[in-house]
């Protein structure tokens, strides 16, 4: 058993913390983390619940391999009903917090109710208590983490928290841990804020030792690490360039959404790319990038640690931003940059720092700025509405709007509702570039067809981390498929979605899947976890999780109509690049996908499918 077999249930309304045994029958069906927490969540929460009401719950959860030497075994997830989407939300984060929670002896924490006043949860091994957070409310995630470490007189305590965005109801607020790692999407931080829960501080000295077959486990994890080290992407590309290695590649493919998806190639892509982060700046002769960094247990180390240019307009006289800090990763660089036409690397890093500091998702924020800039371009929003001129490409507007969103000032409040609600409010709902009210990430589905289907059917709204067919369509992993055609994509998307659900339930990072298939993690899971974890069982677990999430969304009121893309991607062809003239073929792929999944024409799992999966 690699589970600690303990669940911490925190009743915020009544201020109690109770330990209960983990449901081991469910653990055998859902593995851990994403799958197992979702099973708990859907069993306890009414799908129609208002995400921001006390009746919604929020689960922080580790996987069975979290806190072990399996490479990247440091992940935790946050499962709730998303504030941004109203769909099932599961946001995954690295850093060190997840492993510490495991070392303290907990598989998951279930938060329910709402605290009458701001609190934070303090955990020291089996001791858990809610503490007053009055002095932390109104503070950034960075100050919160530092203050808790000082108060506890323990620099080794690990903290996750919400910043002012989560307190102020920014609908895409994140939960930030270890300064710059985040459970980023769908507004999980907003839900945390609605419960008056500011932070969780964990110190674990118990450790994770309950491995089924330690000898086999050490051999399996060592073999896995060798595969990662010898793979070109995980062994060289990611450690050297980070996820930013993709910026120029995706731009060349004509799949880099630019200016709210008006264009598919960005003329300044190179200026905001990994390569640019390695170049010496003319101002101070230093490179933007300081070093790469790993999360707990990770032998890839794709993380970027950068230092902003002290002379840049955004940080003049703000020495608090001059130190080395997290960023830029590809998604943030794209959303803050290409999505709104800004080609100023330092401005992007400033906005990224603000997103980390006050806890909000740079993808949704950047894309919402892109939508606002289009509304401005069309004359629907005026400078007087926004408080400044906000044309596409304005680095000044981007930086100022980031600050305003963080503190909930002026137009920042409107940006905090996300692009779907913003565009709806101004009578142009079709200009919101997303699915299920969640903004697209950094791949244009006219140039990478499979991603259109992956976005449309993702259970947590538009997302690259639910079925990353980019791996196949662009990088040829595990096999190369043509990004410009729809044929075969239904099966491809299903395969990626189901496999990803297993990775996300194990405690491992999905980035390992550039080099690992399920066959690489199967021996690691099987050696660690009680039970017989065959490939067949893992495949079934993945598909079961996907359908469980789907069932929740259907019960929440989503229908096949919500498995769709904005009209722009279906009617406005790509203007340049290899995909020139193409739109996304979602209407062709959707029915094929439903059939592939064993769902009816309305996107509902058939009785036979549910029975087969034991749902």
């Amino acid at each position: 058993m690699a589970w600690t077999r303990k669940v911490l249930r925190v009743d915020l309304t009544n201020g109690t913390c109770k330990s209960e045994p983990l449901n081991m029958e469910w653990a055998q069906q859902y593995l851990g983390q994403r799958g197992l927490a979702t099973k708990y969540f859907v069993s306890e929460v009414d799908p129609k619940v208002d995400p921001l009401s006390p009746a919604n719950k929020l689960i922080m959860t580790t996987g069975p391999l979290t806190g072990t030497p399996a490479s990247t075994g440091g992940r935790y997830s946050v499962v709730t009903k998303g504030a941004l989407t109203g769909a099932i939300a599961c946001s995954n984060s690295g850093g060190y917090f997840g492993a510490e929670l495991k070392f303290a002896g907990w598989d998951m924490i279930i938060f329910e109710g709402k605290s009458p006043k701001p609190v934070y949860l303090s955990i020291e091994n089996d001791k858990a208590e809610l503490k007053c957070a009055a002095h932390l409310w109104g503070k950034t995630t960075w100050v919160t983490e530092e203050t808790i470490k000082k108060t506890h007189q323990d620099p080794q305590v690990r903290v996750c928290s919400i910043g002012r965005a989560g307190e102020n109801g920014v609908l895409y607020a994140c939960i930030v841990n270890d300064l710059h790692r985040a459970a980023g999407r769908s507004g999980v931080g907003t839900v945390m804020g609605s419960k008056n829960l500011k932070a969780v501080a964990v110190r674990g000295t118990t450790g994770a030792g309950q491995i089924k077959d330690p000898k086999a486990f050490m051999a399996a994890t060592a073999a896995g690490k060798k595969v990662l080290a010898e793979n070109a992407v995980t062994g060289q590309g990611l450690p050297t360039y980070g996820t930013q290695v993709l910026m120029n590649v995706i731009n060349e493919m004509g799949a880099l959404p630019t200016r709210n998806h008006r264009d598919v190639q960005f003329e300044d892509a190179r200026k905001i790319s990994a390569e640019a982060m390695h170049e010496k700046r003319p101002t101070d002769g230093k490179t933007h990038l300081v070093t790469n960094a790993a999360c707990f247990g990770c032998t890839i180390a794709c993380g970027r640690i950068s230092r902003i240019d002290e002379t840049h307009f955004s940080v003049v006289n703000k020495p608090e931003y001059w130190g080395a800090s997290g960023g830029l990763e590809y998604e943030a660089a794209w959303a803050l940059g290409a999505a709104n036409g800004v080609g100023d690397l330092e401005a992007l890093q400033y906005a990224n720092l603000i997103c980390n500091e006050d806890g909000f998702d740079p993808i949704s924020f950047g894309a919402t700025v892109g939508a606002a800039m289009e509304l401005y371009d069309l004359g629907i929003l005026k400078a007087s509405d926004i408080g400044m001129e906000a044309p596409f490409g304005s680095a000044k507007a981007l930086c100022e709007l980031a600050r305003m969103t963080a503190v909930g000032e002026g137009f920042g409040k409107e940006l905090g509702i996300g692009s779907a609600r913003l565009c709806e409010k101004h009578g142009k709902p079709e200009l919101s570039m997303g699915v299920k009210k969640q903004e697209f990430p950094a791949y244009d589905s006219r140039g990478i067809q499979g991603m259109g289907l992956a976005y449309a059917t993702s259970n947590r709204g538009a997302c690259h981390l639910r079925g990353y067919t980019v791996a196949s369509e662009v990088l040829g992993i595990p096999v190369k498929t043509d990004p410009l055609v729809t044929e075969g994509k239904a099966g491809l998307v299903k395969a990626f979605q189901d496999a990803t659900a297993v990775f996300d339930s194990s405690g491992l990072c999905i980035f390992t899947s550039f080099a690992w298939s399920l066959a690489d993690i199967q021996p690691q899971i099987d050696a660690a976890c009680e039970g017989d974890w065959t490939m067949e069982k893992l495949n079934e677990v993945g598909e079961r999780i996907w359908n469980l999430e789907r069932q929740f969304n259907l019960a929440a009121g989503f229908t096949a109509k919500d498995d769709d893309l904005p009209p722009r991607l279906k009617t406005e062809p790509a203007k340049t690049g290899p995909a020139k003239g193409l739109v996304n073929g979602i209407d062709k792929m959707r029915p094929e996908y439903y059939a592939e999944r064993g769902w009816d024409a309305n996107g509902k799992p058939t009785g036979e499918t549910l029975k087969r999966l034991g749902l």
Partner: protein
Amino acid sequence: MQKSLHIDANKCTGCLQCEMACSYENYGVFNIAKSRIKVFNFEHEGRKVPYTCTQCAEAWCLNACPVDAIRIDAATGAKVVHEATCVGCKVCTIACPFGTVNYVAETGKVQKCDLCGGDPACATACPTGAITYVDADWTGLDKMRAWAGKTDTSPRASA
């Protein structure tokens, strides 16, 4: 040949595989709180530095111990805590200038790096070569080589 742990902090990514390997080797659990090697993260500088006992030739911890619980492993040169003898007085933790001997409340004894009997688990686990176990007399060899390579001698006749 005597070997010693050699640390190249520039190569450290902060993954803590060394800490897990150390705790597993010595306690049979994955528990970085029990690791004898610690990685320090200087966040605002973007630096991560693994740090542990350097096995001083003239070991102050050994000399300070009133019950001779710290002894030299003849094969490796490691200064090793003999738990059965240790009385948990903590004088060694005061004597050590580097803080690499630490008290363990759970056992009532002190712990420090013992080089795993000559096959340090941390060095084996390190994925980037930030921790290596090399000839104690030549820990600077790689650095010398790197600098030697940068020495610009007069250009050779071009081919």
